[in-house]
């Protein structure tokens, strides 16, 4: 079936079997391999993308269901000149080691910070509970989210 949706501000479409997940659509049909397949059952969060402003596990969402909606992936954060503050903070604070959890983690952080640029550590932990990381031990990730939040509230702009 033909699935048309907005991805990172661009209208995209693909003809895919109905059982195609949003994750597979992004990775295999739209060339957006930032979202990852880590478990395929919605536990690890590496597939996290934002649909209509809400973070979801794209491995659990059918592409057909996402049709007509607004998807933001990791590829939509930076622009030609700048990193998104979250990407900047993650890089600077060493919150990315192997990097595989990175895109999902950053999208979950974006979901949080878009609603609240001054989260407490407890709120950050709650917001990132659906994203697993095996490398960093999470401490630097939490610090990076705090720093990113400060940068975002000082610029007061939401991409």
């Amino acid at each position, binding site marked *: 079936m033909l699935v048309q949706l907005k991805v*990172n501000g661009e209208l995209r479409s693909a003809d895919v079997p109905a059982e195609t997940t949003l994750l597979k659509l992004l990775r295999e049909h739209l060339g957006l391999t930032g979202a*990852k397949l880590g478990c395929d059952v919605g536990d690890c969060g590496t597939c996290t993308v934002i649909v209509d402003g809400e973070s979801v596990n794209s491995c659990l969402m059918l592409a057909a269901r996402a049709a007509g909606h607004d998807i933001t992936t990791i590829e939509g954060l930076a622009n030609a000149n700048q990193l998104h503050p979250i990407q900047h903070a993650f*890089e600077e604070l060493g919150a990315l080691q192997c*990097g595989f959890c990175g895109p999902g983690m950053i999208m979950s952080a974006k979901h949080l910070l878009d609603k609240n640029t001054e989260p407490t550590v407890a709120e950050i932990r709650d917001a990132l509970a659906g994203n697993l990381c095996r490398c960093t031990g999470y401490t630097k990730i939490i610090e990076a989210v705090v720093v990113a939040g400060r940068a975002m509230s000082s610029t007061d702009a*939401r991409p």
Partner: protein
Amino acid sequence: MATRTKDVQTDTEELVTATESRAPAKQPLIVPADQPVAFPLQLPEFSARLKTPAVGQRATRPDGRLHGLGQTQYIDDITFPHLIHAKVLRSAHPHARIISIDMSAAEALPGVLATLTGKEIPVNSFGPTLQDQPVLAAEVVRHRGDGVAAVAALTEQIATDALELIKVEYEPLQPVFDPLEALEDDSPKIHGGDTNVYTSKVIKKGDVEKALAEADHVFHRQFQTQAVEHVPIEPHASIASWDANGRVSVWSSLGRITLGREDLARTLDLPQSKIRLIGTIVGGNFGGKNEITNEPILAMLSRKTGRPVKSVFTRGDEFISSTIRHPFTMDYTTGVMNDGLIIARKIRLVLDGGAYCSWTATTIGKGSILAAGPYNIENLLVEAYAVYTNKTTTGAMRGFGAPQVCFAYESQMDDIAHKLGMDPLEIRLKNAFTEGSASPTSQTLQSVAVKESLVQASERFGWKEWQR
């Protein structure tokens, strides 16, 4: 996306420049713009990376930038024209003889392009120390994660469906799961012969029996650690592409690609010059991606089909088929004097060696040498055995034997301190290595800071205050 007034923009730039004073060359950080991402982005380097000397500077990881952008290419992100997908059928039994494998129904499934069984592999054995592991089991399966047959198909779903059509006839054999049981004479011998012990180590120093007899106290306890799976967030993944010149290119999440190429050369019976093995950023290794898994299978399937073949472990495969950390069963007998001085330690380590050797030889070596702990012990006997069991192959995982024995000797130090009424910190300081101490294998140790570290740490986290 929001657009901004000029004033707010200026304020932001000033604010950001002030906080970014370590990197004056950097562009100010501005979020909005309506341009879609243009690859590649040219962003300034962090100033710390531009300084010399670099030692003492705060550096950022060069790959952090690409990770944050989602641009890092892991194996599963790579695709080629005409790529097809492979899946491996895993054993239905923990221990069984394979009587027959009937691939005909799987081969007939529309969309299946090739199949593979173990007997088609030119040299069906590999391993870093003992080459006891088959690429695909041909005669005997030794654990539930053992691969038995593989298919390559146009889609992953067809490949998965094809696995269900493979008919394997097994003759179940008696399995053994407990390593202590596997030591017994009447246990099933998983790799034949008259013992399941496949590697062992002995370290002897002084006269442990004499010293134990002279000790004021003798402590004995058995400690056990459990199996641990690495759970790298990136599952094992590889792609193989055989070309018309008879050379194979393999992209793999493998961490040790030189060894991997040796294993490919061996199993495919190909000169190394015909093998190109490309590693990339690995999404988490921790020891579990140190040896080949499906790579020879994919190479053979690619040769049969003339197409690039990819396979990615499912999370389930990761748990049953990729290697795990060795469970240790550790018997510690320690002779101690009244003042807390340890004069003798006798240790028996039994490693649950899983179905195949993998990195056990390294693990048993490290585990044995470190088994006594960072303590001066004049009289020492360590006997370590690795035993086959019909469970997931135990291999390398961060520490390689060190974490297991550490749990044992440190737990016992606390037992000893408690019994003697001594401060657990004091008893460690009394016995710890110092500069010039000899390791259990008589290496003279240098740059030894055990005592200083313990003292500083205990002061910092308030050991005395915490003591009841």
